[in-house]
């Protein structure tokens, strides 16, 4: 009784806070919370977008786990993608943001633009279709033929064994996105007096400075970058569809999201697509928990 009273009192005292939250969270409720709840509900139904959804319990999830062989391939590919591109992209973002931070003025803005370019030009993948073209005019084939590494042109995106590694390289090239810009902004807000104090305390080189001063000072941005990285690495689909096609050769480029798109935009089975989305969501939440635990130890 006493507890509920104090809760009420605390809520009344925080009127100003709630007023500031209201505009965002009212919209958030309508345009995010409701749709997410609705799709989780749909994952327990059969829904073809023409008839009303029909409740079928756990059937979608059972099919996903036991019958859908392609989902297993997609799941495996996604894990490989995420485990490799996730951490590597994250470090690349941090590394390049940190180096660019050494520059000043317009040079700095220009460098940031150049490194962010793949994320800002919508058609970045076009470059890769030219590079990876399967005939001898493709830049990669041309280069390898000329220097004698191979004797015949390789069909990069049509050969099962090459698809996944190539997609990983392209994804890494695309990786300087949201997290990268957040790090750039984060480095700007590190208090410069911290560096002087650290120099007095015996920090000798830039690497020590990075680990003991810079990184701990931008922990909130590191956390933000990690969440962005996880959502990107687990949701890889665009480049796979654009370069390898959907479905790709023997599903070698299939990921959870290409599988999801297959069911939602081609087969119109939204119930099943929602089940895939829910599994993907749980996967991301789990890895986020793990990553946040690691990040807490930065600078120790």
């Amino acid at each position: 009784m006493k507890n509920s009273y104090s809760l009420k009192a605390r809520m009344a005292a925080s009127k100003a806070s709630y007023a500031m939250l209201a505009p965002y969270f009212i919209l958030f409720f309508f345009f995010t919370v409701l749709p997410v709840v609705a799709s989780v509900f749909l994952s327990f139904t059969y829904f073809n977008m023409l008839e009303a959804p029909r409740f079928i319990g756990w059937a979608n999830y059972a099919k996903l786990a036991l019958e859908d062989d392609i989902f297993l391939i997609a799941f495996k590919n996604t894990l490989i993608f995420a485990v490799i591109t996730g951490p590597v992209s994250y470090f690349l973002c941090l590394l390049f943001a940190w180096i660019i931070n050494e520059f000043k003025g317009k040079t700095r803005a220009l460098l940031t633009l150049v490194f962010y370019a793949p994320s800002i030009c919508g058609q970045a993948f076009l470059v890769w279709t030219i590079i990876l073209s399967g005939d001898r005019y493709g830049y990669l084939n041309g280069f390898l033929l000329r220097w004698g590494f191979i004797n015949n042109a390789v069909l990069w995106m049509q050969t099962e064994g090459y698809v996944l590694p190539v997609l990983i390289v392209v994804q890494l090239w695309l990786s300087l996105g949201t997290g990268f810009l957040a790090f750039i902004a984060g480095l700007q807000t590190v208090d410069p007096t911290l560096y002087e104090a650290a120099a007095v305390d015996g920090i000798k080189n830039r690497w020590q400075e990075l680990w003991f001063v810079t990184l701990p000072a931008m922990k909130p941005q590191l956390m933000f970058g990690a969440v962005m990285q996880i959502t990107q690495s687990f949701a890889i689909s665009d480049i796979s569809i654009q370069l390898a096609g959907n479905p790709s050769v023997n599903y070698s480029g299939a990921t959870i999201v290409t599988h999801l798109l297959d069911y939602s935009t081609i087969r119109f089975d939204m119930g099943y697509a929602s089940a895939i989305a829910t599994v993907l969501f749980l996967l991301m939440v789990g890895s986020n928990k793990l990553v946040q635990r690691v990040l807490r130890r930065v600078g120790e």
Partner: protein
Amino acid sequence: MKTKRRFRLRLGRRKLNRSAAGNSLLFALMAVCAVFMALPLVMIANNAFKPLDEIFQYPPKIFVRNPSLDNFVSLFAVMNDSWVPFSRYILNTLIITGLGTVGHVICASLAAYPLAKHDFPGKKFLFNMVVLSIMFSWTVTQIPNYMIISWLHINNTYLALILPAWSFGLGLYLMKQFMEQLPMSLIESARLDGAKEFRIFWSICMPNVKPAWLTLAIFQFQQMWGNTGSLFLRSESLKPMQYALQQITAGGAARAGAAAAVAFVIALIPIVFFFVCQSSILETMAQSGMKE
């Protein structure tokens, strides 16, 4: 005079803990990588100025040999032919992208401030909900979203694109992370001076996290600029420029020249916006000492 001295002082600070060997190694690495990263920019810019025979040339070349403005001329010709006057598409884009970006930055920052600096019941819950929402695949929420927008009777209005954009999860998360770093003493001293919470938010918190909301503006602008609105907008007179431009591209081989010019325009505008925002991030930081 005074600013000059300060600038020098900051330069001096930068030199701490930096070896010449390390510097040259890092910069060489940067130069090599920059060439690869700039490829799409170089390609789009070159394509836009290629005459038709070079666009269709096989094998394709990245660099243009005989640059011409033909593509832009044909783009303007197609634009004059459009269903509604092309200026209407531009106006729609200004409204949707402008309000979508400004509104989101304000809405998200306003909510991020109490989440970062106040203590109230439900704080953790609300914040976690937003972070988790970022991880839910938007592909499957589109249909429920469409139903909700119809139910709210904002289908086929600008609001159908603008209002959801105001509540994207990324912006709130980003702003909250930056505001968290502001020292509590800054806010408390303003409170002692009798400032109301909204005033503290607007004139103390926001100026101090300028890099954050400029970065957020870049993300949101890009997002809104890329939106064709084809799901919610049925009236031709409401559709944004991105939609009209993509229709031109859809003309296929016959419009290949105009399409190359379109790709250039579509990329150029966010790049200009990006450059303006990034440059002003630096300006602010050079002026203020920040966070004492």
